[in-house]
Structures are given as structure tokens and as C-alpha cells.
């Protein structure tokens, strides 16, 4: 399965990588969580001075794997070799002492503390038990300066932007000697300039012989900094390939196990009259600025942009979830600016939120109750003052079998279903009532490929039946392949509107970042 060994061409002494044993080697690592085999016999090796990308879908096991290497979890089975020696990493602290540092997507920062206090959290410098604040401050300033991050050590983390918090998280990894650096989608919230700076740093530590494990979804980044790519799928090792010579199509089919054409359905768009018209809309918190878009019946409109670009906020403002500062929202012929969530639902506007745990579902209640929740006041569910529980049961059962809920047990708590099936429950909620405009915010987060294909078909069918659909997504292939038209947002503004052949990855990415930086 392994492809030929690849030599990083910017390491001066090529002999170093060949002679040296791998920095880290995993053999048949398994990790079992209650009910789930998250890693199923994964093998992996990391050479000194290489950038090794882990590639795979959400839920493929990438995060579990780096957590295992960083000492967050202990493997259930398998062997780990560090510089040729067998090793059991007991804790994050132990991993740190070996020079293994991880920068996770979910920040491990204490927001109430300052940047420097966070940097040294867990390894504070003391003199006879008393904190040595001055030394710590100087050391923090030195680290930040060497990394080129424009942060003040005394600033509270709570006041920093997401990108700045990401920088603090990266700086934490650099506070002690490094042997392995793990970066989990570090550029997700960085600007182009900050990303360039990060890549320079990566090159720098690479030349010092540090091994870097890098998780990304972006093919462009793989091209730019990776040496080798290991692909995981459903917790299993698929292949390790050379980063420069493997094409995008090959990578995606390795990742998903199918060709792109098998994942995304062919959709026949038949745009009719304009249904939603947003004109010059700004929110009170200034996260959306003077945005104007329109959506017609019978088409899917994509909204793309980085995290925090305002693509969710724009739609949430129309759904009564954000305060509108200026602008108008027309739904059909009616001015619906500033109406409540209930009023928008009753007009046929349905918004499916991105995070099913925090906003989408009542996790400790049954599928039945979740699915019928938005529609209990409709005659189908409700008669005078009482619920029609038989009618509810029948309607929900039909929906659940139509969406192939597995296992088909609608009285079970949502929490006890897999991510893909939870997502199906979330989607089923919009089928209990008449909807003219469906908005799906990140519809396939944490969902396996099989379910993804089903969800795309589901969305395509809604559109072909004449509904208007908006898909908000940070997953580029998703918006690229589903959309009839595509709006790209950046810092709260509509940066571009693309349609037809203009919808390409290059065109979208060009509008993701600051104009001056691009």
C-alpha cells in the first residue's frame, strides 16, 4: 500500500531522512469508545523534517489519531514507537515532555486569563514556589516575537478574535523544545497573511528536524507544504501517497471511496420567480454589512466563506435570530424584516442550524418529539387543546422510514443515534410542515459518506419539486457541486456572485481572503 518514500527537497542532507529511524511510528493502532471503533488498525510513520498530512472526512478518525499521539487518549490496541523505542504515552503532560505538542481545533484556552498566563498554563515558572511573573512575561514576549504574532502578552484571551486565539494556541506549542508538532486545521480562521506567516514557521521548524502532522481539508495547502499524505476513512488506514504528484481527484476518491460524480447528484435547476430578496442588510452587531442577495424557487443558492464571514448570520437575521440594523427582507411579496422565528416558520421559511447538538436537536428526547416539535400547533398534530399522538406517531414513522433512519426506532433518545442518523432527524424536522424556502446550514457536518450522498439527494429533490434552497457551507466541494448560483462572503460583505461555469474552486477561493492580500 505504501508508495515510494518521498524525500523532502528542502532538507539539505537527504541522507538524514534515509538513515534515521522514523521519528514516530504507529503499528495497527486501535481505539475503541463505548459503541464505536474510532480507529481500526491504523499504521503511520513520521520522518524528521517532513510535513505529513492526514486527510479524510469528518469522522474518519483523524482527530482520534492525533489525540492518541498527543496523549489525550490511550490506544486500545497496537504499538507506538518513538525514535525507534516502544512508547506508551500516559498523558498530555507526558507527551509534552517528549516534545510532542498538539494544536487542536477546539481551543484549550482559559478565556479569563491573559495571553502569557495561558502560554505557561501547567508549566508556570516559579522561584521557590512563587510565580516568577517577570521572567514569564519576558519569555512570553520572546516567543510571540519569534513567531511574529502581533499579540500583547498581558491581554485577556476573552477579548481576542478567533484568529488571535488560534495564534495563542500555536504559540503554546512552541514554548518548549519540539520534536513533533501536530496542527489540526490551523488555518481555518487565519487570514492569508497570517497563513503565510504560519507556513514560514512550519518550514523553519521543519528544517530543524521537527516532524509535523498536519490536518487539513484544503487541497491547495497540501500542494503548498505537504511532503506525504495519509488518507483515513471510517477509522481505517487507506493509503499513504506522495503529496506533489497525486491529483485532487485521486485524493478525493481515496477519501470518500467513490468518484466525485457518485457523490453529488445531477440537479435540474428550473429557477422561477424570486422568493427571497434581501436588500442592503446590516446586522446590529456589524457582522453582516450591506448584503444583498436573492433566491428563486427551483434553485439551490450556495453561501460560501470562511468561518465568521457572516454567511450564517445573514440568514439568521432573516429568521428572527439576529437584530437587523438596516435593510429589508422580502419573502414573496411581503416585507418580513424583523419578524420572529415563529412568524417566519409560518410563512414557509425553514432554517436548519449547523450544530445539531447545541441548536438543532433536543438530545435527551426521542426522535418522535424532535421531529414533530416545529409543527405541533398544526392541525395534523393538534386538535382543540390536545395533541393527536396517534397522528404524530404515524407521520413521524413515515418520515423516519422515508429517510432510512437506522435503527428505525423513533422512541429512542436522539443522543443514542450516530451522527449521520442524528442529522437525518434534523432534516426530517423540515418535512412536517409546508416549506417554500429551505436553508441548510452545514448540512453534512460529522456525517459519513453514505449519509452524505443521501442528504445531497434529499436536498436536490426538494429543489426539483419547486422549493427554493439555500446551502450554507464551509465545505467547498459541497457548495461548488450543489449550487445553481453561489455567493461568496468575506468579513460580512457579499464579495462575489458566481453562477454556472464561473463556480470554480479558484474563483471562490480568490474571494475568501482580503482583496489586497490575494
Amino acid at each position, binding site marked *: 500500500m505504501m508508495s515510494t518514500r518521498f524525500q523532502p527537497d528542502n532538507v539539505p542532507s537527504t541522507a538524514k531522512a534515509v538513515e534515521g529511524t522514523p521519528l514516530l511510528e504507529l503499528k495497527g493502532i486501535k481505539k475503541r469508545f463505548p459503541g*464505536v*471503533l474510532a480507529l481500526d488498525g491504523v499504521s503511520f510513520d513520521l520522518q524528521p523534517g517532513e510535513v505529513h498530512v492526514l486527510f479524510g472526512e469528518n469522522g474518519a478518525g483523524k482527530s482520534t489519531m492525533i489525540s492518541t499521539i498527543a496523549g489525550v487518549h490511550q490506544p486500545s490496541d497496537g504499538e507506538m514507537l518513538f525514535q525507534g523505542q516502544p512508547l506508551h504515552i500516559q498523558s498530555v503532560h507526558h507527551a509534552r515532555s517528549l516534545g510532542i505538542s498538539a494544536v487542536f481545533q477546539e481551543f484549550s484556552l482559559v478565556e479569563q486569563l491573559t495571553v502569557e498566563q495561558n502560554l505557561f498554563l501547567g508549566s508556570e515558572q516559579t522561584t521557590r514556589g512563587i510565580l516568577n511573573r517577570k521572567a514569564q512575561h519576558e519569555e512570553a514576549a520572546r516567543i510571540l516575537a519569534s513567531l511574529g504574532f502581533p499579540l500583547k502578552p498581558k491581554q485577556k484571551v476573552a477579548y481576542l478574535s478567533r484568529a488571535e486565539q488560534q495564534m495563542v494556541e500555536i504559540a503554546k506549542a512552541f514554548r518548549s523544545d519540539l520534536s513533533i508538532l501536530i496542527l489540526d486545521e490551523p488555518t481555518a480562521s487565519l487570514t492569508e497573511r497570517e497563513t503565510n506567516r504560519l507556513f514560514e514557521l512550519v518550514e523553519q521548524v521543519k528544517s530543524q528536524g521537527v516532524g509535523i502532522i498536519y490536518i487539513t481539508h484544503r487541497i491547495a495547502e497540501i500542494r503548498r507544504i505537504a511532503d506525504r499524505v495519509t488518507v483515513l476513512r471510517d477509522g481505517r488506514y487507506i493509503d499513504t501517497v506522495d503529496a506533489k504528484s497525486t491529483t485532487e481527484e485521486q485524493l478525493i476518491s481515496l477519501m470518500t471511496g467513490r468518484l466525485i460524480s457518485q457523490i453529488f447528484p445531477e440537479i435540474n435547476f428550473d429557477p422561477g420567480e424570486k422568493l427571497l430578496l434581501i436588500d442592503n442588510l446590516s446586522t446590529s452587531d456589524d457582522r453582516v454589512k450591506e448584503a444583498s442577495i436573492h433566491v428563486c424557487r427551483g434553485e439551490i443558492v450556495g453561501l460560501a466563506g470562511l468561518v465568521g464571514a457572516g454567511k450564517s448570520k445573514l440568514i439568521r437575521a432573516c429568521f428572527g435570530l439576529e437584530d437587523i440594523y438596516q435593510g429589508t427582507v422580502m419573502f414573496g411579496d411581503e416585507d418580513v424584516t424583523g419578524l420572529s422565528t415563529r412568524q417566519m416558520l409560518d410563512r414557509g421559511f425553514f432554517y436548519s442550524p449547523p450544530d445539531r447538538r447545541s441548536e438543532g436537536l433536543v438530545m435527551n428526547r426521542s426522535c418522535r418529539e424532535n421531529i414533530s*416539535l416545529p409543527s*405541533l400547533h398544526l392541525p395534523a398534530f393538534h386538535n382543540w387543546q390536545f395533541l393527536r399522538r396517534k397522528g404524530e406517531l404515524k407521520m413521524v414513522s413515515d418520515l423516519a422510514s422515508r429517510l432510512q433512519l437506522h*435503527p428505525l*426506532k423513533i422512541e429512542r433518545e436522539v443522543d443514542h443515534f*450516530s451522527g449521520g442518523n442524528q442529522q437525518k432527524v434534523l432534516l426530517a424536522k423540515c418535512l412536517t410542515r409546508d416549506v417554500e424556502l429551505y436553508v441548510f446550514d452545514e448540512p453534512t457536518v460529522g456525517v459519513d459518506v*453514505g449519509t452524505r450522498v443521501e442528504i445531497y439527494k434529499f436536498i436536490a429533490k426538494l429543489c426539483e419539486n419547486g422549493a427554493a434552497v439555500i446551502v450554507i457551507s464551509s465545505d467547498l466541494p459541497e457548495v461548488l457541486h450543489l449550487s445553481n448560483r453561489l455567493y461568496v462572503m468575506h468579513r460580512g460583505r457579499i464579495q462575489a456572485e458566481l453562477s454556472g461555469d464561473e463556480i470554480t474552486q479558484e474563483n471562490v477561493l480568490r474571494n475568501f481572503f482580503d482583496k489586497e492580500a490575494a
Partner: protein
Amino acid sequence: MSSEIQSGQSAQEVADQQPASARSLQYYLQLIFVRLGVLPFLLVIALVTFTLTSDNFLTSRNLLNVVRQSSYLTLIAVGQMFALLTGGFDLSVGTIIALTSVVGATAMAAAFVAVPDSIWLVITIGIVAGIAAGALIGAINGIGVAIFGVSPFMMTLGMSSVGFGVALYLTGGTPVYGMPAEFGDIFGFGNLLGMPAPVMVGLALILFLYILLNWTRLGRYFYAVGGNLKAASLSGINARLTLFLAYLICGVVAAISGILLTARLDTGEANIGASMPLESIAACVIAGVSLRGGVGRLENVVLGALFIGLVQNGMNLARIESYLQTVVIGALLIIAVIADQARLRVMANMQD
């Protein structure tokens, strides 16, 4: 997809695949524990223990006595459940009882002096005034929690001090006398179809709340708002109104309990109900109501409250000192919480 199939299996499916010999008694006990919580086990232990320690325990007269004595706590626990379902709790239920008692008795006594001939009018005025006082506390709790976002802990703790202070101020700390004797005779000591009046009132109210909770939209919304407030709002539910109504219902139900207790005591007392916040929360938690909100069944809460009444009665018969009894109740509450967490672990194991 294969891992999904594994993780998605329920305990029963696993059981179906196991050979019959593997389905031992232990397995069924675990299943009962996971499904119903710790209450069935505690009930069995209590019944066996008290039957062995006292000959008078397992008699129909004593058990009816337990039901009557527990009816006040049962009502309060059922009201408390609404607050718990929405993810909060109400520490002011004791104060609501005291204030209801004082206001109801004062109003009734005053009306009795004014119109001594219309007994029913006097009683109605007293009951309405008392329940209105309790409902007011519940409404203020609801406004604080739902509109101003005060944590239920601080809001109801604060209101319990406010209400208690008002009740003491109104009475000067002395009991209120002067209610018509019929009030106590009917609502305190009366019988209907062989059932004590407080039990009958309690049953009617419990039936009403059961229907409200299980057969109306509002009932469903309490569960949804407590389970996930954001998801409920995004589904078009007025979450603030739902929260407000939970505290209002809790207040009204506690007030009705307070009226019944006043009838039994025949006086308006500011010093009753102090143990009710703890005992009502204990009854709910023992009955499997989640402190995180969104989970709980009303019929179990009734059983939970009866269980606490049973334990108190059994300890009285066994001549255990009342000071020690409060130790037992507190310990039971903590055991119930620990058992609830153990339940989650057993549940995870069984699904594996």
C-alpha cells in the same frame, strides 16, 4: 457504516442475540435500573425494612395515613418538577406555602368578620387570596428567570427570603386565627368517597397536570425547552413564555398545597414549609427527573414523593428521632444523584 450499526443497537437487541442462559437475573435488574432508575429498588428496600421493624406498618389504615400525610409534599414535588424539567428549580416553594397560608388565613378571617353569614363566600375569598399570593411569587420567579435571565438558583433563593419576610411582617410572627371552622372541617379533615379531602384535591390536580404534560403542546414544550433551549427557539417555540409558565405553575401548585395545609392546621402559619424545597427536589430526583432538564415523568414523581412519606412514616413507627430523620432524607437525595450517574454508565455499557 458498520460501526454505526454496532453503536445503534439497543439493549434489547443485544439481549436478543445473546443465548438464553446469558440473560440472567442480574441482566434484568440492570434493565430495570436503566429504565426506571433507583426508585423501585429503594421502594422494595423500604417496604421490607419497615415491615420487619414494625407490625403496624403494613396495615391499610397506616398506608392510607401515609398517602394523606404525603399529599402535601406530592403536590409540591409535582410543581417542582415543572421547574426542574425546564432545567431550573424552585427553592421558594417553602416560602410560597408560608405566604399562602398567612395571606389566605388573614383574608378569610377578615372576610369572616365582615360577612359572617356567607361561609362559602368567606372560604372562597380566603382561598383565592392565598393562591394569588403564591402565584405572584411564582410569576416573579418566572419573570426573573425568563425575561431577565437571572439564574433560577439566585432568583428563587432571593424570592424565598422576600416571601418569608413578607409573611412574618404580615403576622408579626404569630399564627393567624379566626377562620370559619367549616374550612378546616372540609379541606383539612373532610372525606369524600372514603378518601381524605387533601388526597382528592391532589388526585384531581395531578390528573390535570398529567394531561397538561403529556397531551398538550405546552407540556411537550416544557421538555423541549429544558432539553435544549436553542433548538426549541429555532423550532418556533416561545421559550421565554414556556419558562415563565413553568415557574407560575410551580407557584400555583405549591399555593394550593399551602391552602390544604392551612386547612389541616386551622391556622395561618409563617413558619411552615421550610423543609419543602429540599424534600420536593429529593422526590423528583429520586424519581429520575434530570437536574439538567428535559427528562422526567410525572407518575414517577408522585411515587417519589410517596416514597419519602413512606420513609418518614416508617421511621416514626420505628421511633427514630426526627432530627435523625432529616439526616436520612438528605442522604437519600445524595444517593439518588450518585445512582443516576451510575445509571448513565450502566446504560453506556449495555449499549456497547
